[in-house]
């Protein structure tokens, strides 16, 4: 095969496939979001939802749903769908970024201890009865916990102006163990009500969706989504290793710092409003890479769409499969995600002898 043909087989084909995948994901996402907005106790069809959305924008797009449905739509289901989109895309992008900067397809926001740091923050605030910030108290505490966790792990693993990937991952493991132990202690000494609260929060759910939760996570998700495409090329080069990336002109330390801060913001914000939802940041980037190659320029936006799709769809299933009861979303993603991850490990081991 000549080099000209290779151009087609490599980057360009990846780009073509990437465009198709991104378009497909976008279409599927709109469909699932409409279904999620419409299905529930007071159902509304896509035409009614469109009319209701148009009405708020001052457009006349046909007959509005009845007032009760309209209220449920705007107060319950739409914020929940939007929160799912934002949290899902944040987790997807955070996972893809982490795998890029930590040189391992196994990295995930949970791995370096962000999720468990956030969980500890939330559990602590519940345990000590921290309510100074009203309904926001637990979320803010979770956010603070996630940020502290990232900074601690990142600080420990930096030596001589560089970040050691192995140390970073190992300190993530240590931090996970520590936070797990402390949460265990808190759980043990909690009264019944605190126990319920801590447990439900740890399970992860979009059930507490409100417009203010949407507003809280939106800036981070949008900032991440806007920045991510510019990180595509440097992250591709980083795949050669830090030294070679630097030899090709990438300011590696700056890139890592930027990515770590972004990951911290994206995943802390997501965990703070939705609790611990695992495997989205792990599985979605894996699937995208299988479909359109390792190019980060495609991977980052596609992971955002894929994460949003997985979470919105997952939440739709979580609240309809056993209606009127709700399966916790975090349990659902882990239930589906962990066997998938197992399969992924076996497949990769068979194909390329593992990750070494």
């Amino acid at each position: 095969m000549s080099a000209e043909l290779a151009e087609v087989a490599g980057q360009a084909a990846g780009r073509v496939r990437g465009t198709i995948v991104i378009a497909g994901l976008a279409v599927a996402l709109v469909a699932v979001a409409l279904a999620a907005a419409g299905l529930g106790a007071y159902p509304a069809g896509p035409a009614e939802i469109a009319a209701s959305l148009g009405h708020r924008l001052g457009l006349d797009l046909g007959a509005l749903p009845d007032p009760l449905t309209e209220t449920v739509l705007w107060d319950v289901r739409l914020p929940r769908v939007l929160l799912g989109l934002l949290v899902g895309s944040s987790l997807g992008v955070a996972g893809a970024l982490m795998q890029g900067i930590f040189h391992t397809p196994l990295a995930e926001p949970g791995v370096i201890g962000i999720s468990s740091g956030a969980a500890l923050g939330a559990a602590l605030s519940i345990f000590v009865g921290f309510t100074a910030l009203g309904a926001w108290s637990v979320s803010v505490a979770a956010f603070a916990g996630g940020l502290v966790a990232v900074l601690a792990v990142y600080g420990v693993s930096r030596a001589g102006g560089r970040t050691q990937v192995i140390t970073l991952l190992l300190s993530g493991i240590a931090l996970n163990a520590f936070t797990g132990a402390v949460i265990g202690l808190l759980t043990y000494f909690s009264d019944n009500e605190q126990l319920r609260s801590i447990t439900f929060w740890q399970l992860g759910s979009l059930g507490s969706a409100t417009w203010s939760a949407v507003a809280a996570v939106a800036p981070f998700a949008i900032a991440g989504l806007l920045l991510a495409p510019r990180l595509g090329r440097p992250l591709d080069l980083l795949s050669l290793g830090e030294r070679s990336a630097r030899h090709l002109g990438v300011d590696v330390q700056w890139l890592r710092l930027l990515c770590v801060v972004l990951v911290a913001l994206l995943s802390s914000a997501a965990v703070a409003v939705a609790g611990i939802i695992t495997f989205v940041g792990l599985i979605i980037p894996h699937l995208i890479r299988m479909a359109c190659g390792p190019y980060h320029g495609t991977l980052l936006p596609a992971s955002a769409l894929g994460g949003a799709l997985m979470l919105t769809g997952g939440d739709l299933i979580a609240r309809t499969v056993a209606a009127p009861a709700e399966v916790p979303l975090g349990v659902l993603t882990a239930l589906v995600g962990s066997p998938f991850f197992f399969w992924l490990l076996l497949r990769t081991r068979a194909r390329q002898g593992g990750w070494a």
Partner: protein
Amino acid sequence: MRLLPAAPALPPRPAPGTAYAEAREVGFRYGEATVLRRIDLAVRAGELLALVGPNGSGKSTLLSLLAGDRQAGGGKVRLDGRPLSAWSAREQALRRAVLPQQLTLTFPFTVADVVRMGRAPWAGTPAEDLDEQIVTEELARTATASLTARPFPALSGGERARVGLARVLAQRTSLLLLDEPTAALDIHHAETVLSLARERAAGGDAVVIVLHDLGQAAAYADRVAVLSQGEIAACGPPAEVFTDELLSEVYQHDVEVLPHPRTGVPMVVARR
């Protein structure tokens, strides 16, 4: 954004014979051990300089100091007339390319993608228009054109080494730093690689190669620097530097140097 900032001024080609990269009084310690001591070395535009010496003599460390991977413990490293640290990563990347001993890749990019990565420093400059042409040329030159669509992790060691070289050549810098480029290669590909390095030197670039094979160094280098225990034991044209006495002492082994019967190029063999 500082990751790949706005295109800097393109570096001019160095005049033949000027010192393009220099180490002055450079030392390096690794923990308690002194790896390099007061090294003075300049590589000139248009020459191929080979770094040779026993295992652990500091060859690769010296190369990594020239590359800017490590900070020298003392002394100065210069590139294109300025201290190395005065150039940004991008400005360095427009001036020197580095072939590591082992090229690893986290994600399964294709061979063509990897070689194209060598063009990254030129993004946004007028030279970017030549990217595809240069990538095609270097793939052909390193006999890797038939591999272009293969994922890099699926290649054999020898194939990886050649693809890695193609990436470094595609960077089209005036300084090439190659760390044991022939280690994984058979005699045919090793000779090809050294000829390519020779060509680049003949075209006016400065080339530094770390080599284990003294015969290869003698045949292809304009000058060789023999490192021994962190110091330069000798530096000059191979025919002058490679003597029985010097090499036997440096390598702690009885070595003899014979002129090739036809070309006169020194051949280095262990006395058996």
